[in-house]
């Protein structure tokens, strides 16, 4: 579902150049798994003429080993950063990278000490950063190295982790460091509540610090001083660029990219771009309220867009694609409510809940104030109130809440203290069917005709991967149980267990619909007995015959259980589309699912 950001008014405006300095704030040397020394690195970057700012951020665990002269590596990095910094000309930054793959990597700047991953987990490093009021950055977020537990939000930590890499990489001859995964995670972090600005760094491991490609973190500061650079890392006045010297500006009245504004219902956003000779291919404004393409072209332009801030928490950033494929991503501007009470990340726990049944809804409640607050949540659908509750949230806390909703309304508007905080559009299905694949009956592709029929009825069909459990079975309205493949080489896994027989019978008696797909080929293996047993335990007198190829004792193959669910028996040919399912059976399925 693509949301469209509503622009009220668009005006082409005039350019007003600001000052930008370029940097590379994630790089390694032989002090960890890179090459060369910090001295060489700073020297190389300074002499390169392509960056004004360079950080060295070697891995935490390698800093534990002292240098041959007995001194500590981080001390030397700090010493070299001081030595190579020339105020007004080149700023060298010391740091280290906390490297716990699976949680995520974090670069931490300007601390006099370090801590390594073997003694810390994610919450520990968060606490360490908070204790030192350090400046930190989320690095190359994603599945490979970690995404910080899906960017679980902590208001206190948010004060110190202020940047995120939307670009990372030292690919030679490739500026493509802004990857879809990082870009998606950037938005995920913003949607969880993090106030992080966008950086792009080379993460060098070879002796080409800042010169491996054109990836840069641009600093929007008016003077090149250590103080201003450190400040910009905290205030997020930066942008990520794959172009070595593109200039962009993103501002609104009284604020520039990276800033947070409060209680402004309508604003004019101004975007400026200049990179002589490098035309813009496309430009967008991304927001938690949608994406809007900007009608701009050329190598120098400016535009103003009037936007309404519909929610109590809104962010906007700019993405510009150049004609040569290079991308530029700005840090956001936030428009928030000054109540410091936010409701974010609302969603149905099951992405597609079943209409008419209660379903779980999750959301995060954030109290960013240094005192406890009561947050009263009201969920409305149109005029009607479908949910209301008050929550006590401690100071500087984010609570992840799950509540059960009982409504068939699709549009859910979440209000916090009467301010609209979040909107959810529920994607209901009419039922959920589980397709068992765990009894040597992995027929996902063969049974596509049956799956299509059920989807045509508005249902969702989910293959059961792994053991068939009672929980999974009862979570759906339909259980499809194909008899096993007689030719499998793992015959020990064909039988259904007594426990499974027990809960399947119970499921049917409690209202579930069981669809049995008869065997593809006659089963001679003794495991067929377990299916016969299931048939015996069902309240009918139908028997499996012919090695599971047919049944006796019923003319229709359908069983209706008074007050309960039912059973449908389909032949292999019916389920795989080789013959049609008769109308009576189809009618029975629809009846049982309440669709008729």
């Amino acid at each position, binding site marked *: 579902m693509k949301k469209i950001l509503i622009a009220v008014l668009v005006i082409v405006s005039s350019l007003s150049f600001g000052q930008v300095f370029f940097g590379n704030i994630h790089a390694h040397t032989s002090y960890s798994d890179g090459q060369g020394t910090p001295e060489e690195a700073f020297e190389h970057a300074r002499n390169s003429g392509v960056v004004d700012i360079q950080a060295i951020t070697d891995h935490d665990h390698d800093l534990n080993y002292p240098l041959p002269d007995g001194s500590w590596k981080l001390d030397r990095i700090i010493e070299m950063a001081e030595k190579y910094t020339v105020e007004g000309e080149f700023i060298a930054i010391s740091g280290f990278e906390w490297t716990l*793959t*699976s949680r995520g990597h974090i670069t931490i700047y300007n601390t006099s000490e370090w801590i390594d*991953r073997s003694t810390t987990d994610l919450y520990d490093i968060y606490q360490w950063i908070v204790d030192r009021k350090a400046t930190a950055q989320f690095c190359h977020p994603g599945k490979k190295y970690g995404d910080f537990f899906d960017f679980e939000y902590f208001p206190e930590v948010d004060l110190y982790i202020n940047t995120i890499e939307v670009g990372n990489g030292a690919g030679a001859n490739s500026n493509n460091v802004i990857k879809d995964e990082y870009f998606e995670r950037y938005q995920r972090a913003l949607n969880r509540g993090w106030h992080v600005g966008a950086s792009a760094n080379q993460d060098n491991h070879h002796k080409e610090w800042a010169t491996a490609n054109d990836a840069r973190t641009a600093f929007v500061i008016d003077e090149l001083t250590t103080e201003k650079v450190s400040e910009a890392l905290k205030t997020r006045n930066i942008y990520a660029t794959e172009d070595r010297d593109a200039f962009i500006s993103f501002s609104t009245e009284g604020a520039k990219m990276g800033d947070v504004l409060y209680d402004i219902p309508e604003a004019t956003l101004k975007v400026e771009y200049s990179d002589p000779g490098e035309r813009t291919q496309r430009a967008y404004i991304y927001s938690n309220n949608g994406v809007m393409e900007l009608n701009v072209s050329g190598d120098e332009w400016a535009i103003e867009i009037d936007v309404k801030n519909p929610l109590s928490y809104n962010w906007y950033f700019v993405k510009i694609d150049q004609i040569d494929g290079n991308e530029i991503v700005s840090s956001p501007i936030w428009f928030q409510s000054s109540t410091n009470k936010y409701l974010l990340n609302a969603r149905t726990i099951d992405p597609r809940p079943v209409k008419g049944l209660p379903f779980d809804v999750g959301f995060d409640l954030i109290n960013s104030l240094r005192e406890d607050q009561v947050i009263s949540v009201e969920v409305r659908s149109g005029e009607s109130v479908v949910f209301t509750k008050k929550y006590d949230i401690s100071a500087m806390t984010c609570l992840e809440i799950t509540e059960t909703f009982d409504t068939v309304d699709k549009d859910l508007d979440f209000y916090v203290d009467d301010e609209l905080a979040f909107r959810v559009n529920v994607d209901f299905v009419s039922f959920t069917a589980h397709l068992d694949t765990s009894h040597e009956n992995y027929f996902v592709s063969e049974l596509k005709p049956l799956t299509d029929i059920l989807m045509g009825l508005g249902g969702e069909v989910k293959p059961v991967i*792994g*053991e068939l459990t009672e929980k999974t079975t009862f979570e759906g309205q339909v259980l499809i149980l194909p008899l096993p493949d007689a030719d499998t*080489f*793992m015959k020990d896994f064909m039988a259904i267990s007594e426990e499974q027989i027990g809960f399947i019978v119970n499921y049917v008696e409690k209202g579930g619909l069981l669809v049995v797909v008869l065997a593809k080929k006659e089963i001679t293996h003794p495991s067929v007995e377990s299916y016969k047993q299931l048939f015996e335990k069902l309240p009918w007198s139908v028997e499996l015959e012919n090695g599971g190829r047919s049944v006796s004792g019923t003319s229709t193959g359908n069983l209706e259980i008074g007050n309960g669910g039912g059973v449908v028996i389909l032949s292999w040919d019916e389920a795989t589309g080789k013959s049609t399912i008769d109308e009576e059976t189809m009618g029975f399925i629809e009846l049982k699912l309440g669709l008729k």
Partner: protein
Amino acid sequence: MKRTFVITLLVVAIAAIGFAAPVKVTMWYAQTGIYSQTLLDIAAEFNKLHEGEIEVEAVYTGNYQDTMQKLLAAMVAGDLPTLAQIEQSRIGQFVDGGAFQDLNYFIDKDPEFKATLDDFWPRFIQANTYEQGLLGFPLNCSTPLMYINRDLFRQAGLDPDNPPKTWTEVYAASKQIKTLGEDIFGYRFGKDDWLLEAYIWQFGGEIISEDGRKMLIYSPETVAAWNFFQKGVREGIFIFGVSGGNELDLSGRIAMVVRSTGSLGYLKQNAKYDLGATTMPGQVKEVVPIGGANVFMFSARPQAEKDAAWEFLKFLTSTENTKRWSLATGYMTSRISAYESPEIQKIMTDDPRYALTYQQLRDCAVRRPWYGPYPEVHAMITSAWEDAMSNPTKDVDAILKNLHEEAQDVLDDYYF
């Protein structure tokens, strides 16, 4: 592939060595980091002890594959080093070409050393014994262990103290584990060559005949093995990938993975879940390959140089140094006496997971295939495996049949 002819050079011994000139021994090796550092430390110490007599120069020659290639080139050019660290599956062409010195020549003349020969782990000596004699000494050896995320086991209602012992049990446990979530997998595997050999053997299959001339890989047993792993991937309970293994293993989303015993230290430091380890599962058979590399001496070198190299080999594999190597690198000790030393025993008392590899070594570890054309054959096996596992609906039988035929052509070409 063309057979490599070995030109045995007439080596003119230079008799007139001045009294002060030490005999120079060159050793090529294939590992970096702590491995390199430890080896260089041992060589430096040896040189100090033999100052003026012997000088060992250890030279890094790239990874296992690069080192093999350089040695093959050097064999043709006639400028081999005295010693080299060579990975087990890459020695075939040297053995076939008669390039290695039979170490029994020195052992027989060295009764003091000979008396300690049975102090080496018998399976290491067995693994270095060929028709031409005892050709190598163990240096960095390991066996594969199965690492377990004990937290996932518990969450799935499985007993982490009773981990699967067979592949069928791995499959059954994986089904249970899969119920924990879409993103969670029972078993992860890639295309590590030594593990592919293990899978085939464990299911009762074989790769190549004893004499190295006949492919045996297309058999019902190997088809069953490959079908088993492919089935796990197809059904979504195993995960196959050729990169990103470390990241997955640390992610907490993998319940079981087989890796070298040498990974234990790395996983202990990085994994933030309750890490368990057990012996590698079997199926029809319990068998694991001995991984890693051995040190070989080249017979074409001058006698004085070989005599000197022998002294270094003894030093390198002495109880003290194999213990030191093991402590520094995490590889197994080559000698039983080193294993029994208080330092190594303490490691195993502190963490019994370190003892598993020795248990496997005693019980079921065997030499990997080593025949001359094997590097090429195993590249073919790996690529067929990758094909079958990354396209889990492909017909394993057909893939293996085709592999078998093409690999047989390689063997036929080599031995023509």
